[in-house]
């Protein structure tokens, strides 16, 4: 062989390697083209105007609709930054403030402690514009107090540490901290500022117990050492004050604040890219705190009954081997079928548990003083269990509230609670009027297992800034619907119980309950934590049980509201199970039980139920691909109910085009001949995951959703939705998978920072405000994860058992607000199951409650698709259940539906047409319509990276081909010239 031939063979080898890798890689890259285009900020279509019709601007953006304009993008981000600071200013919650600690006086000289000060959760260190600087905790302090007034000596100690994870708390050894103590012994000791961090995230619940055997949400040993050291320094006269800041959206145990002589404590949550400016403004008194808790902060984060089945306490069926051998969806060693949680606590989550048990303790009912559930292992006592109740929050000023009266508007079934608020303190500030209700818990309820929370949040309003000495009056509206209870056993619908009703204005849930108890004649002598004020309550009596008034849907009086989720309840599966009841806290307190999966559960796990109804239409009953001359732009104002126009529009599409709408690669591909452009989507993880089209940089890292919740300000909720919509539009998106409809069932749930609250009623209001403002600005609010996805541990396919009352009152209600009040047009289902049925294949949930009962007009997506999980591959069942598209599926759903239709399934075609309408209607209510007209044509543009990849492939083919030819030429030409000894010999 000649050397030249060997060289060509080598080149052939290299090009073969590169060619094969490129070909297989291209397949993957093209499958996720949408995701790559988003990442690279690439536009895939261009709109061309033909004819004389003018392009329409349906969703006007105050910053303009040219999303490629850098100045406009800068204005958007500047406004977003400003809103984030405002959100942080109102979203921090002051829990304790003694000894005139806060606000800090100007130029206070302080020392920062705690690894969280330097490794802070929920921030980001970049913005899309140099003009907008990211703000860290440290930089915010330096700006507010003066750089020279902040002692950062400990930075070097913390530099080598990592950030606290969801299992490990990262903190310095106290001996290392002490090495720097000279820096604060005689200076920088006006205050010791301690920052403590905790975290949870997608897929990762926080640990319940750490490796050192302590509660993750309690103090670690090193943190305890730090606090003890600081307390001693304060006792020794070194530090004047100790201030603790909680950088966490998980509900930390804070029963130790007094033990370490902490003067002030504030929840600062996850403030995003610039929110620490707002935090610093509160610390220095530029802003008066007005945030309130949206969760109960318990002394023992694991004392609530929900923890029995949650997070680390998620259970595995005892006979998983049998289940794995027999369940059809076992593709992952049973990981998607074997695990379960039972919402054994029923409705008693968060304050609904703690406050209800407290009332029963005071009223000496239901064995509330049982040791079960007591964190002290003695008789249960509220004061030892709850550090800060739901709704709690201090201000620098003091407000006096007076209940003026309550009016009832029978026509609209609304109560109006009128309150006078006076600022009797020294600072101008805002305050929140919180209205709670108590409804009767009598014999009927006990007999029919209708549980009642002692108080439920039913309304609230936040004031504007009130100057010292000034008074305002404010009216809080309360929907009568919030006074109902879901009765799954007796009425099989919502009821109004017979008996006494109370509306109570309180500073928090506990205060409101104390007012109700006072109205009932109870006081501290009965064991109350404080005297209540009966004057802050309004009381009336409902003479008889009413099972009819709320029988029909709020939005469609032809749809009956009745039991739909028997299969979510464990009792459906021939397993006798008792949920927690206030009838007897002791006897019904949940104990962990080991479940054996039975045939009934196995059957529910198997999802192959798709059948073609006998009266289903034939494929030939539909005509696809006709030309009716209707463009996407023409549909912008066509109502959902106008079936004729929608049918005529959809008749123009081929089956393949309709099936294509079911796919998602962070967006839906455009359809050129109807003038529909690409419609981009992306996830929200407290900030939009896409780049701004004009500059390529990422959008702002937002304050966490729960921080917005803590503002208790409907204007802030709306402002979040609105600003996210502007930002999304400038990122080229039409939809955000955003809105935290699940609840904070436990303190350790991984995505507590993304979900609104432990209380679904509060979530109802937040979802309504955010969704409305986002939809009004042409971006789809796609609330998630529908439903029962309240933890991350084993979230994929988790069997989640819950009774219908809890499901409706706790787990669906926040979604209900976003959809029925906010007009949200997007819903994402969950990875988990209702009972043992996958949420995306529950027609009762999607076609039933969502689309029929709530009158949802929009589209429904699955959560992230993966063909490697068999339980996500029931394409036709999903379509029949009400799924309209599949998140991050680039091929499979469409292929399955097309195959069914090609095989003659007219029912699948009918369903596909419905899904196509839902998808097109939803996209037609977005900024995708901006710039279009009847004469618009969409030109598909092949992204540069795709063209480059194809050229690269061709080049490799040519190189490979040429080198192979040259190699063979060398080899076999050599044979002919063998005699000439061109082949070297030894």
């Amino acid at each position, binding site marked *: 062989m000649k050397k030249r031939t060997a060289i060509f063979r080598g080149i052939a*080898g290299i090009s073969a390697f590169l060619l094969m890798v490129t070909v297989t890689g291209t397949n993957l890259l093209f499958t996720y083209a949408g995701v790559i285009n988003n990442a690279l900020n690439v536009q895939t279509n261009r709109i061309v105007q033909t004819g004389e019709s003018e392009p329409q601007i349906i969703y006007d953006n105050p910053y303009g609709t040219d999303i490629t304009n850098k100045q406009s993008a800068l204005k958007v981000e500047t406004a977003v930054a400003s809103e984030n600071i405002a959100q942080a200013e109102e979203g921090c919650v002051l829990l304790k403030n003694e000894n005139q600690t806060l606000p800090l006086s100007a130029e206070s000289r302080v020392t920062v402690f705690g690894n969280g000060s330097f490794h802070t959760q929920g921030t980001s260190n970049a913005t899309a514009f140099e003009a907008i600087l990211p703000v860290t905790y440290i930089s915010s302090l330096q700006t507010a107090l003066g750089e020279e007034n902040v002692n950062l000596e400990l930075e070097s100690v913390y530099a080598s540490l990592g950030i606290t994870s969801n299992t490990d708390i990262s903190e310095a050894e106290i001996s290392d901290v002490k090495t720097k103590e000279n820096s604060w012994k005689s200076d920088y000791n006006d205050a010791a500022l301690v920052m403590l961090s905790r975290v949870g*995230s997608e897929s990762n619940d926080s640990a319940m117990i750490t490796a050192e055997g302590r509660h993750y949400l309690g103090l670690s040993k090193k943190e305890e050492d730090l606090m003890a050291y600081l307390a001693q320094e304060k006792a020794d006269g070194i530090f004047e004050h100790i201030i603790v800041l909680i950088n966490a959206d998980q509900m930390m145990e804070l029963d130790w604040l007094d033990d370490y002589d902490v003067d002030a404590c504030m929840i600062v949550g996850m403030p995003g890219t610039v929110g620490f400016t707002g935090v610093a403004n509160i610390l220095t008194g530029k802003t008066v705190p007005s945030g309130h808790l949206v969760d109960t902060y318990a002394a023992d984060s694991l004392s609530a009954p929900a923890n029995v089945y949650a997070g680390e306490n998620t259970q595995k069926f005892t006979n998983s081997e049998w289940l794995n051998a027999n369940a059809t969806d076992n593709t*992952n060693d049973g990981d998607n079928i074997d695990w379960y949680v039972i919402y054994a606590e029923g409705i008693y989550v968060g304050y609904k548990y703690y406050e209800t048990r407290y009332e029963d303790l005071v009223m000496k009912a239901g064995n509330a003083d049982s040791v079960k559930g007591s964190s002290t292992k003695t008789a249960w006592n509220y004061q030892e269990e709850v550090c800060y109740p739901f709704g709690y929050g201090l201000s620098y000023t003091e407000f006096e509230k007076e209940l003026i009266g309550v009016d009832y508007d029978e026509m609209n079934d609304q109560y109006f609670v009128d309150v006078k608020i006076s600022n009797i303190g020294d600072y101008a500030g805002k305050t929140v009027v919180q209205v709670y209700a108590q409804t009767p818990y009598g014999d009927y309820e006990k007999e029919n297992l209708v549980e009642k929370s002692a108080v439920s949040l039913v309304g609230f309003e936040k004031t504007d800034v009130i100057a010292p000495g000034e008074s305002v009056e404010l009216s809080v509206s309360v929907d009568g619907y919030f006074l109902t209870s879901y009765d799954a056993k007796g009425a099989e619908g919502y009821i109004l119980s017979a008996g006494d009703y109370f509306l109570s204005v309180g500073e928090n849930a506990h205060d409101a309950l104390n007012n109700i108890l006072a109205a009932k004649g109870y006081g501290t002598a009965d064991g109350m934590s404080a005297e209540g004020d009966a004057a802050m309550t309004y009381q009336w009596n409902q003479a008889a049980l009413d099972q009819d008034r709320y029988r029909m849907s709020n939005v469609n009086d032809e749809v009956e509201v009745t039991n739909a989720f028997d299969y979510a309840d464990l009792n459906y599966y021939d397993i006798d199970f008792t949920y927690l009841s206030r009838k007897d806290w002791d006897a019904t307190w949940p104990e962990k039980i080991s479940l054996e999966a039975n045939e009934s559960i196995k059957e529910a796990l198997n999802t192959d139920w798709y059948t073609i109804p006998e009266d289903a239409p034939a494929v030939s009953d539909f005509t696809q691909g006709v030309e009716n001359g209707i463009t996407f732009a023409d549909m912008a104002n066509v109502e959902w109910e106008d079936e004729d126009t929608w049918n005529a529009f959809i008749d123009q599409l081929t089956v393949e085009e309709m099936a294509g709408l079911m796919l998602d690669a962070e967006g839906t591909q455009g359809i050129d001949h109807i003038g529909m452009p690409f419609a981009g989507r992306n996830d929200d993880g407290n900030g939009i995951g896409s780049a701004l089209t004009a500059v390529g940089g990422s959008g702002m890292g937002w304050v966490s959703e729960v921080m917005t919740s803590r503002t208790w300000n409907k204007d802030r909720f709306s402002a979040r939705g609105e600003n996210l919509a502007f930002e999304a539009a400038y990122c080229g998106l039409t939809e955000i998978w955003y809105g935290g409809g699940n609840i904070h069932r436990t303190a350790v749930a991984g995505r507590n920072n993304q979900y609104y609250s432990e209380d679904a009623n509060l979530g109802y209001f937040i979802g309504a405000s955010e969704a409305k403002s986002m939809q009004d600005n042409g971006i789809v609010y796609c609330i998630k994860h529908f439903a029962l996805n309240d933890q991350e541990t084993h979230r994929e396919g988790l069997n989640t058992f819950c009774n219908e009352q809890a499901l409706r009152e706790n787990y669906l209600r926040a979604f209900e607000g976003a959809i029925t009040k906010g007009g949200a047009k997007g819903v994402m289902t969950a990875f988990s199951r209702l009972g043992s049925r996958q949420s995306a294949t529950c027609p009762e949930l999607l076609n039933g409650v969502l689309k029929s009962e709530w009158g949802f007009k929009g589209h429904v997506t699955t959560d992230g698709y*993966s063909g490697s999980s068999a339980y996500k591959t029931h394409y036709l069942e999903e379509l029949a259940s009400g799924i309209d598209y599949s998140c991050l599926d680039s091929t499979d759903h469409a292929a399955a539906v097309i195959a069914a239709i090609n095989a003659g399934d007219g029912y699948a075609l009918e369903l596909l047409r419905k899904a196509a309408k839902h998808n097109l209607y939803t996209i037609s209510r977005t900024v995708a319509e901006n710039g279009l007209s009847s004469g618009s044509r969409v030109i598909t543009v092949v992204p540069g990276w795709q063209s480059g990849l194809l050229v690269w492939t061709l080049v490799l083919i040519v190189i490979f081909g040429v080198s*192979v030819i040259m190699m063979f030429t060398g080899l076999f030409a050599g044979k002919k010239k063998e005699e000439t000894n061109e082949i070297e010999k030894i």
Partner: protein
Amino acid sequence: MRLRKFKELQKGERASRIGTLTGIVVLIFFCVYGLVYQYFDTIVVLGMFLGIVCSELYLHCKIKAAECMNVVSILCASFALGLFFMNSYPVWADRLNNISMYSSRGTLFPVITILVLQVAAILCEVVSCFCVRKEGV
């Protein structure tokens, strides 16, 4: 045809032999990995196997046509490599994002190990391609 000892092999043949042995190791590793984590893929196995066979054919067949077998070996092994990488996206997506959305099994360690070994096997074959094989040895 006898199996020649390593020291009897020419430079390019040695590279090919190392590639073959590495290929066998990675094939076994992949089979175990695929069975344990339910990622067994017949086409990947076939690609790896053909890569090994072609490599061996190159070593043992001293006919002109066999001179291109290491190129064919690279084609097969590279196809297996690409297909394996493509199919491993759930593991990458879940592990790199620290989520569990793609229902992936196992860590990135075996995936990276297989990729690295397979690339090493292919590179050995590439080296052998560049080496002149002298006749009569």
